[in-house]
Structures are given as C-alpha cells and as structure tokens.
C-alpha cells in the first residue's frame, strides 16, 4: 500500500520585501504523522507553517493539503481552511466571547451548523480538552494553559484533517505547559496528523515521528527524533541541539 501524503509542499519560497525567508522548502507529511519542526528563530519555520494554510501567501511553490491545491485561485480557501486547524503562540481567543462562543463561531458561520448543533459539537470539543466546565467563561477568566486548550478545541471542533501548532507553549508559564502537551498527546493518539513548531524537546523525543531541522530558510536535515537529537549529520543541527539542551 502506498501511503498518501496528506500535506505536500514543494519548492516554497517566501519573500518579505528584500528578505528571503523561505528558500525552496519541500515538506511531505503522511496521514497520522506527527512532524516536529525545530530551528533557530528567523529560520522560517513559522512562515512555513503559515504558508501551509495560506495565512502567508508563498511567493512561489505549491501546497496540496488533503488533495486540495491550496494556492489555486479556483480553491475556496475559506472552505479549505476548515480542514487545517491552527493553534497560535498567543492563543488569539476572541476576548468578547465565552469559550463556547469561541468554538461555535466557525461551526455556525463556516460549517453552517444550527446553534444547537454547534453548541453540542463545541461542548464535546471542550470536553476533549478537559474544559467542559469552563464553557461559559471568557478568555480573561481562564489561565494561559486553559486559553490555549480552548484554542485547540476551536480548531478540532471543525474536524480538521491536519493540525498546525505554531509554538503553542512558548507563551505559557512552565507549570501550565504540561496541560497543553497532554491535550496534544491525546490528539496524537486519536490519529490526528500534526505539524508542530516548538522547542519542547522532551515532547518531540517521545511523541514525534519525525523531526525537521530548519535554518536560514531551508530544511537542513530531518529524521526520527533519536537520530536528529543523538546523532545529527550536520554541524548546524549539532550546534542548535547543543544550545537547546544547555538550557
């Protein structure tokens, strides 16, 4: 059986004015795979992630997600984005809505569910992230870790095929990181395809199928976590891993 790539990005370039941030990146991700993207800041890993759901418009290249050509002008991008969830470093919950309202908005306005249906789906999603009892709280009444879990619920409620995580724990106090990683681990066990930009090396080691190291707009090397962490082939990878582990 040939495995189907659920995400296939080819030759992605991205310029921000004179800045050449991505210099021809290829990334293929299998269904149910958990890919960790690491690299120094400014290496282009967040930009790559944002090119996959077209929050950034790649300057050139192609992105196909779940068989949909994301960059084609014929693609209804709003429809396509339902299949790709995204979780941000700064949560970006809507502060003027309750947790439930945050989750139901796209269910009602994009997926076209009735209020009752959307409420039921949203409560189920909040339950999955362990926050069923916080449905009526506003983001301001929740801890950072809880906010990030609501953000995850907001994405998974739409039943995406792929989840993108852009440094999901970087803005959290250390004691709150665990609860978010726990939810991510649960998602992984349920078979969700995940692409994670993060420096949580412990999580990468025991949960990732593959680690991708990026530097200066290119993928330098990739492989199973053990080989990337214990036995990197490139000097730049070795230097970066060394730095990370010293902290």
């Amino acid at each position, binding site marked *: 059986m040939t495995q189907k790539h659920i995400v296939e990005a080819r030759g992605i370039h991205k310029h921000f004015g004179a800045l050449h941030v991505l210099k021809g990146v290829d990334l293929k991700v299998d269904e149910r795979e958990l890919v960790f993207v690491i690299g120094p800041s400014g290496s282009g890993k967040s930009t790559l992630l944002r090119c996959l*759901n077209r*929050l950034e418009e790649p300057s050139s290249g192609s992105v196909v997600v779940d068989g949909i050509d994301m960059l084609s002008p014929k693609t209804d991008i*709003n*429809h*396509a*984005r*339902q299949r*790709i*969830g*995204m979780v*941000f470093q*700064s949560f*970006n*919950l*809507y*502060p*003027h809505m309750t947790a439930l309202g945050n989750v139901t*908005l*796209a269910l009602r*306005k*994009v*997926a076209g569910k009735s209020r009752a249906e959307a409420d039921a789906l949203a409560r189920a999603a909040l339950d999955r992230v362990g926050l069923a009892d916080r449905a009526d709280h506003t983001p301001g009444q929740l801890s950072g870790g809880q906010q990030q879990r609501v*953000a995850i619920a*907001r*994405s998974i409620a*739409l039943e995406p095929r792929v989840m993108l995580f852009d440094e999901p724990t970087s803005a959290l106090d250390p004691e709150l990181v665990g609860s978010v990683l726990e939810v991510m681990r649960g998602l992984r066990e349920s078979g969700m395809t995940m692409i994670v930009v993060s420096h949580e090396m412990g999580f990468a080691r025991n949960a990732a199928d593959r680690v991708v190291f990026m530097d200066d707009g290119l993928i330098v090397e990739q492989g199973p976590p053990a080989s990337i962490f214990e036995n990197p082939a490139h000097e730049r990878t070795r230097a970066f891993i060394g730095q990370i582990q010293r902290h």
Partner: protein
Amino acid sequence: MIQTFFNLDIMMAAWPIVLSGLKNTILLSLIVVPLGLLGGLILALLASIKHPLVRWPLMAWVDFFRAFPPLVLLILLFAGLPFAGLELGGFACVAIAFFLNTGSYYGEIFRAGIESVPNGQVEAARSTGLSRLQAMRYVVLPQAVRNVLPDLLSNTLEVVKLTSLGSVVAVPELLYEARQAQSITYNPTPIVMAAVIYFLILWPLVRLLSRLENRALAGRR
C-alpha cells in the same frame, strides 16, 4: 432680572413652540447620528483596504470634510446648490452636510478602533475558515467598537449640539423655534428654555461618557 430671563408667563406661551423645536431636534439627531455612524463605518471598512487606489482618495475625502467647517458646508449646500438647479430644503441639506462632516469623524474613530484589534484575531478567525468580511463583522468590529465607545459617544454629543446649526437654514429645530418665540415675545426667556433643554438632554450623556472613560482607565491599569 427674573422677569427678563425666566419670565413664567412667556415660558407658558412659548412652550408649544419650543416643544415642537425639541421634537425636531430629536428627530434630526435620530437621522444624522445613524447616518454619520453608517458613513463612518463605510469609510473605516474602506480604510482597511490598503490598496493605494482606495487609500489616497479616501484620505483626501476624510481630510477635506474634517477641515471644512460644517456651517460653511451647510450654507454652501443650502444657498449654493439652487444655482445648480438643485433645491434640497433645509432638512435634507443638514442630513447631507452631517453625513459628510460627522461621517468623516466617526470614520476616523472606527478606523482607530479597528486598528486597535491585534492582527492575531483576524488570523485566528481566517484560519478557521471565516471570510475577511465575516472576521470583520464577528471578531474585529465588536472589539473595535468596545475599544472606542467613549470616543463614539463623545462625537455623538458634538453631533447633537451641532444640530443647532440647522437654525441657520430655517430647519425648525430647538434653537430656531426658540429664536422665533423670542422675536414674537421680545424676551430672551425662550432662548434660556432652549439652553436648559439642551443641557437636560445632553447631561446624562456626559455623565455616561465620564463613567465609560473611568471604566476604560480602570481597565487599562
């Protein structure tokens, strides 16, 4: 003194005239405030399109009508347009002038509000499949309006006060009718009545504004 400025007999006599003026002032406000808000909202939404072909004309428009004294604009519409064969009447002139003038002010307030909402909010909304317009309507605007509520209210106060300009083009609003009553009775009491009525309408708004401003300050701490 009391006979001159607070003459009870004249108050009784002038009351029906002043009351009809008050009704017209309220009616005028109920037309020009929503009109200005609508114009402002349209301008602010256009301003969120960063294309130079939209941006420069928009900026010129807003600058022009903010720099143009509303009274001059009003008189120009009322006294100038008939020469172009267009006779609009005082009420319509006030509505148009206010749409142009206060729309530009409301527009700048809405724009500041929209810009105060972090871009991450739009990105989160778009990432779940909301269109640009849906993100604006459900995510950005409610937060934007909340952020600039004191400024919107403060501008609305100004607009209600400015409706008295209608008296210049014979719109029978509060000030105009008070002056009519004054000239009939040869006594300034009706003007004092108008002043008191303006104060009574606007003072609750001023109090509300202070409360909103204090709350905004407390929220910032």
